[in-house]
């Protein structure tokens, strides 16, 4: 069994998530070969074969060109699996490759069981076990689900790949940097975050009061930020900030995967939610089952005593 692992590279850097692909392939027990559309200076620490396409020529992520490069490499290697991280890069590119190969695709894998793939459903409240029916399959793995143990070593054997002029329909113009952070949540020892479960904008102040009582900062989930209740610089999760405070209090947060990815490494997690089955309970040290707008003021008052 062989896996072609497609590295992710952005603005001159190989992304660390590349090593999660290696961990996943090890979990499968597959032989590994990698493709990097990047630069020689940034080849992964890996003692196998790496196909390298120069980003100086192919540029930052471009769906049509990257698809051609993956397909050309797949043609040389005949992998059983072509694997990406389920990121804005991987989920965009993988189906294009799958369509061209008429291959099955399984998205956002979090586990392997009986040679089949486990994926989340319904906001992580359920799981599905899927099996590809085609000989070749395209897979994306959830970011953070497979972690590489120890430090990766090895110098790859590099083989350059070139494309004979391939038209690209999508033109890359440039990057827009993240908004300047008004608050650096990464430094906070305590973060108290508000989720959609707080009900309305006026209730944000109640959550902020608890944050103050604990000497911490206010955080928020994406829906709360999108609704304009809290500014973007306080967003915790894969599209906001990743945080590791000593105490994280999740108020009215059901626990979308993208949010959990940004806070699960906190030292101690308290979740306050009326739904006992909310996925946030899976990462919480303590789950308080209560109406958040009743419990939070009581807790704040207790702390101020």
């Amino acid at each position: 069994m062989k896996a072609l692992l497609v590295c992710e590279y952005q603005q001159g850097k190989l992304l660390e998530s590349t090593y999660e692909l290696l961990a996943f392939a090890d979990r499968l027990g597959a032989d590994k070969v990698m493709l990097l559309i990047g630069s020689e200076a940034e080849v992964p620490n890996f003692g196998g074969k790496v196909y390298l396409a120069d980003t100086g020529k192919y540029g930052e992520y471009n769906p049509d060109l990257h698809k051609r490069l993956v397909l050309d490499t797949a043609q040389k290697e005949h992998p059983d699996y072509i694997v990406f991280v389920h990121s804005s890069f991987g989920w965009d590119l993988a189906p294009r490759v799958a369509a061209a190969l008429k291959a099955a695709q399984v998205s956002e894998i979090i586990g392997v069981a009986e040679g089949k793939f486990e994926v989340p459903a319904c906001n992580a409240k359920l799981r599905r076990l899927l099996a590809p029916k085609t000989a070749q399959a395209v897979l994306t793995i959830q970011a953070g689900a497979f972690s590489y143990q120890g430090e990766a070593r090895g110098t790859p054997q590099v083989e350059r790949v070139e494309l004979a002029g391939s038209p690209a329909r999508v033109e890359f113009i440039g990057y827009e940097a993240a908004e300047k952070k008004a608050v650096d949540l990464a430094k906070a020892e305590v973060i108290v975050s508000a989720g959609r479960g707080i009900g309305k904008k006026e209730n944000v102040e109640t959550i902020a009061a608890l944050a103050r009582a604990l000497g911490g900062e206010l955080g928020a989930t994406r829906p709360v930020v999108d609704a304009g209740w809290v500014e973007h610089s306080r967003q915790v999760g894969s599209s906001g900030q990743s945080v590791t405070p000593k105490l994280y209090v999740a108020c009215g947060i059901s626990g979308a995967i993208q949010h959990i990815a940004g806070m699960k490494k906190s030292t101690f997690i308290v979740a306050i939610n009326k739904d006992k089955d909310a996925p946030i309970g899976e990462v919480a040290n303590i789950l308080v089952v209560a109406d958040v707008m009743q419990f939070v003021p009581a807790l704040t008052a207790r702390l101020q005593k």
Partner: protein
Amino acid sequence: MKMLVCIKQVPDMESRFRLNSEGVWYDEQDLAFRMNEYDEYAVEQAIRVKEQLGGAADIMILSIGPARVVEAIKKGLAMGSDRGVHIQDDHIYQKDPWQVASVIAAFARDKNFDLVFTGLQSQDRGSAQVGILVAELLGYACATTLVGFELSGDVVTARRELEAGIRAIIKFKLPAVVTCQLGLNNPRYPTLPNIMKARQKELLAFPIMDFLSEEGTTTTERMYPPEKKGHGLVLEGDIQETADKLVAILKEKTTVLR
């Protein structure tokens, strides 16, 4: 300008889910269904394009599924779309993303849509595949995860959301398929007069077999709830007592309280 918006109807994610008798999907009984959240941004963006063009556009809403999905189509019409198409299938949950995309592409193939909008992913299955597969099948340009969309002539300048707040600015020509990320715009609420008007709008229905010719490429072995890790302590009951207990635990287990 001809636009197609592909929407899915999904259960409220706050629901308590039970499995169906086959054990491969959730039981739909007692669930409240609504338009997939990502698709609301897709509908809104299509309407904004029509407004930008002074109304010189036609927006068709398409959804595949059992009779209940007509409610989601009607919401799209009440938001301001022009016509609806219901592709009827009581067993849509048994179709994989490849089949769903092939049905949409078969429907759209001879209709010359300039722009196809859909959500980044569905809230229940979340494969994030269908929009891209439709584009590949139709030979259209495709951009995903959009948080910015500007149309000028037949050129779209879009912002893709990457990770950690970074965005990529890209440009492409129509025809194209785009998938919408949360926060792309502010989806409007249908007003009562528009809900009334929507009742008069065209709503066509076709059986899925008119468009389905592909076999699935994946099999669902089973669906199941995640194993309860049971690490966490659950506190419930009287609010004051629970607050006292929580403070005591925080004092013992963390260093943030004196």
